[in-house]
Structures are given as C-alpha cells and as structure tokens.
C-alpha cells in the first residue's frame, strides 16, 4: 500500500481543484447541523467536525431518486431513464460511514439482481475518508469491526497529524486521484507519519466509553425469535418515528411510487422508507404482519445484529452512534445488545 502527505496549507487548493474537476460532496455546516452537501470549493467545507448529523449514504442512495420518467396515454408508453451520473468525490467521510457503504454493496450489487442506479454512482465516486480525531460518547465502531482510523472501503484515507494529513492510498481509484494531483500529494515524511498514525489509532481506541460486545448475541437471537425482552420498555416508549432509520448509514429501505408531473407524464421515484412506520408492511385488506411497535422494534434490531449478518456475513450496524444520539426516547442499540447478552445468560 502506498502513502502520501498533504500539507494542511494545501488542503484548500486540493478541495478547490476537486470541486472544479468533480462533483464534490463534503461536510458543511448548516446552522447547527453538519451535513454532506455538494460544495463549490474549499470555503464551504467543514474540516473539523465530529460525526455528521446525517451520514453521506445519500451519495449512493439519495433520499429521493428518480428511476425513470414515463409518458403514458393508455395506448402509448415511453420510458426514459435519467442521464448518466457525474464523476464524484465524496470527501471527508468518517470510517464508520465508509464501512456502512460496504454493507450496502451486497444489498444493491447482489448476485441475483444488480441496481444500476447504485452501481453507477458507486463506480464513479472516489471516496476520500477522514480519520476521526475525537471519539464521541455515542461512538462504538470498534465493537463493530471498525475503528476511528480504519480505512477499509475508502479509496484514500486522510489522517490529520499536526500540520499535515497522512494519506493512505487504498485502491487503484485512489492512486489515480493522487497521481492526477501529484503536486499536492508528496511522499516526503510519509514513513514517520505512518508511525504517528498508528500511535493516534492506539490512543483513540482507548477512548471509547461504550462497552459493546456482540459475542453470543446473534446465537441467542438465532434460536429465539420470541423473547419476552421485546415486550419490554423499548416497545412501550418507541414513538415509531423514522428518525433512527433515516439517520442510520446502513438503513437501505425504500418505497417506490409514481409522482405524476402532468396529465400523461410522471416520474417513478424511490424514496427512503422505514421499518418503524406501521404502513411499511401493511397489506391491502388491512393485514399487517408487524402490527405493533414490538414487532417493528424487534425487526429493526434483529436486522442490524442478525438478519444482515445471516444474509451477507456483515453486521448491519457500524457503530456510528447516530440512532443512539437522535432517538427522542433514548432507545439505544448498545443497551439492547448488552441487554440481550444478559438475556443470553438466562435462556
């Protein structure tokens, strides 16, 4: 694996260039929020941020996506798919959010059916990750196989060290980008920075305060769908909003519907949806296989820590802590995991 160095003073130059040559998506501040948005240059980019409020998953699965537009008169039908996608750089994504994209891959690029909307974006996007410089009290990526300086899934990973960024080149895509801007990416001093990064990673890994350990949890869920645990407080206090799933970087569920734009024309859209909404599984005729919050809560957490594992051999949670932070009633996946461990002792 190759590595490079970027002087902090040159990061603006890099961002400006990227914004010119690519569709650049980067963290920005909007009032109190940290969000990923398209930026026109370095001036908009927020380099010093903790985990963003919303993950950058929208780069690959936008909340609203047109799959095609139609012109339909009854007897004639025309279907037009959207034009090709732009070359994109996703800059500044945190390691957990990049790992989350890896959990999307088998869903959208599965063996049976691909998804060209996803794949086209995935192919034409270079992911430049940014190691965390701080661990939040809600973070637990370490317990989900990641870490604050983990470059898995990124094309380049930047780590801030002193007045420099240490750059790990993880893929051919990343290499091409580094080569294209060779005046910014130098090789000088990379060796020392590699050691400094190791140090930083070690230091940060000691800063996690949430003790989360998945061992044995899936096993208890495998054999026990009906646990009295699911009848407990979580089902009572959940208000059935979509917050936890919309802010979750690994939630991929969507709805499909038509949006007429005229008498004969319209768009077919796919938009984020949430398994916490009652209508999600409601069938015509009124039958609902997950009629109460109990079944819906169980589904969400089972999906994260069992179903996704069963299907794709990957945990469906990357430990970003967003749902922990944003749930209005403090339903906390780390507590659920710990509770289930306790349940496991007694079944």
């Amino acid at each position: 694996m190759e590595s490079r160095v970027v002087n902090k003073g040159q990061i603006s130059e890099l961002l400006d260039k990227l914004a010119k040559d690519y569709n650049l998506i980067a963290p920005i501040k909007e009032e109190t929020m940290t969000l990923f948005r398209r930026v026109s240059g370095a001036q908009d980019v927020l380099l010093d941020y903790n985990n963003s409020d919303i993950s950058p998953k929208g780069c690959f699965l936008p909340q609203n996506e047109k799959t095609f537009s139609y012109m339909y008169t009854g007897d004639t039908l025309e279907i037009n798919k959207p034009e090709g996608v732009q070359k994109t750089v996703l800059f500044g994504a945190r390691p957990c959010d990049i790992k989350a994209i890896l959990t999307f891959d088998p869903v959208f690029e599965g063996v049976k059916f691909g998804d060209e909307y996803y794949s086209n974006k995935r192919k034409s996007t270079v992911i430049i990750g940014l190691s965390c410089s701080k661990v939040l009290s809600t973070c637990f990526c370490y317990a989900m196989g990641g870490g604050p300086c983990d470059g898995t899934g990124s094309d380049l990973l930047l780590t801030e060290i002193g007045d420099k960024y240490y750059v790990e080149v993880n893929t051919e895509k990343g290499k091409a980008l580094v080569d294209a801007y060779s005046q910014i990416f130098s090789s000088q001093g990379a060796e020392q920075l590699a050691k400094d990064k190791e140090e930083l990673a070690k230091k940060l890994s000691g800063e996690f305060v949430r003790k989360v350990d998945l061992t044995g949890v899936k096993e208890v869920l495998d054999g026990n769908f009906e646990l009295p645990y699911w009848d407990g407080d979580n089902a009572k206090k959940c208000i059935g909003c979509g917050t936890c799933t919309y802010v979750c970087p690994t939630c991929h569920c969507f709805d499909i519907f038509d949006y007429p734009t005229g008498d004969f024309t319209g768009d077919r859209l796919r938009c984020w949806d949430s398994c916490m909404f009652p209508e999600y599984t409601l069938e015509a005729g009124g039958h609902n296989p997950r009629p109460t919050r109990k079944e819906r809560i169980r589904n969400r957490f089972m999906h994260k820590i069992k179903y996704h594992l069963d299907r794709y051999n990957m945990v469906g949670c990357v430990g970003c802590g967003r749902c922990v932070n944003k749930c209005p009633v403090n339903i906390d996946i780390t507590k659920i995991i710990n509770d289930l461990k306790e349940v496991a002792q007694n079944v």
Partner: protein
Amino acid sequence: MMDVIQQLREQAKKLLEEKKVDLVIGFGQGTELARTTPVFIDSPEGVSKLTWGPFCANNLAKYLTDYKNAPGNIAVVVKGCDSRSINRLLDDNQISRDKVVIIGVPCSGQLEWQKVSAEIKPGASLKEVVDNGDSVSVKTDAGDYKFDKKDYLLHRCLVCENPNPVVSDLTIGKEQPVKNYEDRFAEVQALEQMSTEEKNAYWDKQFSRCLRCYACRNVCSVCTCQTCVFDQMLPMWVSKRTNLSENTAFHLTRAFHVAGRCVDCGECDRVCPMDIPLRKLNQKIHKDLGDLFESPTPGTKPGLVSPLGEFSPGDPEEFM
C-alpha cells in the same frame, strides 16, 4: 433533587402496592449521564428505576393515549408544561380523568442533554445534581461541572409559563416561582420583523432540511388522530418524497392542525433530528391567538375552549 427522587419512588410504590394503579410512567436514567428515558413500571419492586432532575425533557403525557383502552389505572409523572397536555387530552375526551393519577413535579428547567454531554468527560457517571437557581451543578465521578441555565436550558424552559403542574393528584417537590416573561415571544417577533421574502427564505431553508421522519408529529401529545392524513394511502395526500413543496405542505398542515390545541411543550422542536425550529411556528400561532382572541396557552386550565374550535358572533371576521 435526591429527596424528590425518594418521594417519587415512595409514592409510586404506594400506588402500585395499594393497586390504585397498574402502571407508573416516569423518568429513568438514560444511557448517557445527562439523559433520561421513559420507564414503565408495573410492580412495586420496579420503582427504584424512577429518577428526576434537569434531564427529564420528555413529555410523558404522550403515552397516556396508548393505554386508553387498557384495563387498570395509570400514574404518570409530569412537569408543568406536560401537565397542560393532560388538560388538553381530558378536554378532547382522549382519556378519562379517573383512569389517571397525575404525579406533578414542579420543574426549574430542563437542560439540553447534547450541550451538557459535550462538556462532561465521556463515560463519567452521575453522582449528584444540585439546582442553584441560575445554574445547575452536576457532580460526577470524573469531576464537578456547573452549567449556567441561560446557556444550557431548552428554549422552551427559558420562557416557562407553568413551572408548576396545572393539574395533578399529588405534587412532589418544592413549588417553583412563576416568572412573567416579557420576551416570551421574542423569537417570533424577530421573525415578524422580516420582510415576506426574508421570511420565505428562512422557512424554505428550514423546511428543505426536513427528512419527514415524523418524529415531531409522533412525539406530540395532542396529535391523536387514528390515521394521520400523512400516512393515508387512499387517497395519498403527500408522498414520501421530500422536497420543499411537500415538506411545506406537511409543516403547515401540522402547525394548523394543532393550532389552538398545541400546549407549547416544545417536544416537536426538541426531537427534530434536523434542528428545525418547529416551536417558532407553533408560537406564532400562540401569539396570534393571544393577540386576537386573548386566548391563553391551551391546557393551562381545564375546560378551555379553543378559539379555533368554536364560533362566537363577536369573532373578528376580517377575512370574510
């Protein structure tokens, strides 16, 4: 604060032991030091879960309608603002008065947990909380902290109208002084000063961030429709698409649907994951209702008639 917690537990225990209620809904320690979570206690042994302090932002009256048709009675812990919800629910015939035991706790303000958490050493555990009037001292195993209320209180608490519950069966804790806030509508007034274009730009920016997660609607204690129009499939009034026009349709419909019933508990504002200042919308309506109809904040008294739910020949009718 400790004695309030002690008394809460004792009273809850008594209610459960004497079978006066089957369930106590209260606050329990959350998964962050500065956070609580709703707890549902159905046995006397469970009361040790109950806690109280400046991190009890949730309006638990929200849950009462879930138990509307359940057998047995329910006790619920409410702050001043939450107690207004109870009056509203009673007036809307959403719950029957003999079904609930209202445990009122006078409140001296709730802190924004995220702000407090950002200051405290991660992983610290809480030892004691002391209210000093203008500030709150938080003692932890990793040191002591002090938070000035003016910087850390939830917005709604900065202009609290009813620190003491307006309806309750038993009250726990010291009565809090009621203040008269001249600037109660300062934020709304600032918005009113804007030009139409500025106002549009302001709200467009807010609404376009909305994810339509519906946390604001779902947390609302006076949103009690069985099927909300926003969830209805036949006909489908708004789709799941998020764009400015559909988001605006949602927000205006929501604001007007709770107009005259919104008790200003500020929960929608608190829970929004996108920090959309929903309370400003509701407050504008409160202000106008006050200015036009001399109508008090809904829920402040039992049996208050909503000016938007009633017609009287003396109503101004400039728009007709």
